């Protein structure tokens, strides 16, 4: 017989894990070279290799799943577990930064003036742009759910509209945050307040950009008829990631912007 008797996917050999590892090596050593020898060549090469690896690896997964049909129910279940575990690891990543924030802010040292926000720091008004940002992300959570239901109900046009709106809201958030960063009266160098604020919100912003990119890829795939009403795990993974980004923002908003002001 020519075929396997199980429903799992035995992947073909692929060079992308190796190129990804090489990219990681070049980026890290390139970072050190940049710090000590004032040259960004190595790091840039690493970054280019990383982008190529990501594009080709995920393109291959789409080929295997959507075009070749290898993503059977047990395979899809594995992918779901994988995405959930990945998001969980990201939750722990952010938990570290929240720990740092609360460590410094619950018992402010005398050097800060014994108060939080520290003496001299003018915090951002939580009821201005940050509140708008909260509304933008919450709305995008609604639109991505609308998109999901549209996919399941085979409403092609509505799916495209809802997904596009979600991505636009994501861009709007990023633009607003960028403006806030530019206009903020404090910088990352302004003591532990600046450090915790910009590292936590900065990594969050990076995740918003990553999430928006993921959704944009889903939009392109949707336009090209990759998703069916029953099988659209790529979209679900993007939606989960987007909800995670939204939830992290809510915690950031309540802790750093609101309580911390």
């Amino acid at each position: 017989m020519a075929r396997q008797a199980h429903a799992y996917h035995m992947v073909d050999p692929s060079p992308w894990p190796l190129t990804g590892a090489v990219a990681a090596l070049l980026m890290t050593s390139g970072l050190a070279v940049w710090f000590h020898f004032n040259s960004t060549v190595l790091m840039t090469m690493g970054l280019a290799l990383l982008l190529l690896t990501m594009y080709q690896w995920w393109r291959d997964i789409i080929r295997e799943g959507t075009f070749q049909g290898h993503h059977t129910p047990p395979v899809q279940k594995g992918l779901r577990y994988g995405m959930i575990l990945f998001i969980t690891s990201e939750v722990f990543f952010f938990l570290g930064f929240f720990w740092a924030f609360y460590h410094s802010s619950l018992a402010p040292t005398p050097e800060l003036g014994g108060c939080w926000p520290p003496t001299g720091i003018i915090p951002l008004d939580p009821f201005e742009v940050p509140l708008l940002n909260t509304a933008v992300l919450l709305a995008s959570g609604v639109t991505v759910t609308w998109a999901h239901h549209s996919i399941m109900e085979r409403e092609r046009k509505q799916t495209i509209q809802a997904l596009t709106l979600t991505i636009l809201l994501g861009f709007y958030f990023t633009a607003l945050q960028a403006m806030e960063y530019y206009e903020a009266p404090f910088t990352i160098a302004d003591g532990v307040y600046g450090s915790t604020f910009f590292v936590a919100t900065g990594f969050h912003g990076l995740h918003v950009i990553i999430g928006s990119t993921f959704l944009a890829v889903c939009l392109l795939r949707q336009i090209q008829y990759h998703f069916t009403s029953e099988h659209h795990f790529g979209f679900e993974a993007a939606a989960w990631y987007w909800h995670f980004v939204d939830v992290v923002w809510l915690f950031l908003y309540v802790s750093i912007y609101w309580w911390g002001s």
Partner: protein
Amino acid sequence: MEKKIIHALKTGSDPFSMLRPKEYAGTKQDPHMVPSITDKRIVGCICEEDNTAVVWFWLHQGEAQRCPSCGSHYKLVPHELPH
């Protein structure tokens, strides 16, 4: 095209062993039906629940065989893989 194959067989048969195996009594009248793509398959019998020693044996096509330890009946059911 695995998906097409799997969907085609939501007719009841399960050639890719995706679902839990059916329960059988294991008697002569109701032997354990063991699907196979060749004419023999290894069977591991856990005679009593929570037994840590599994009884392994080859099950050949033809008449039902009995587990050497607990005596349950097993019958090979050869089938073709869809392709």
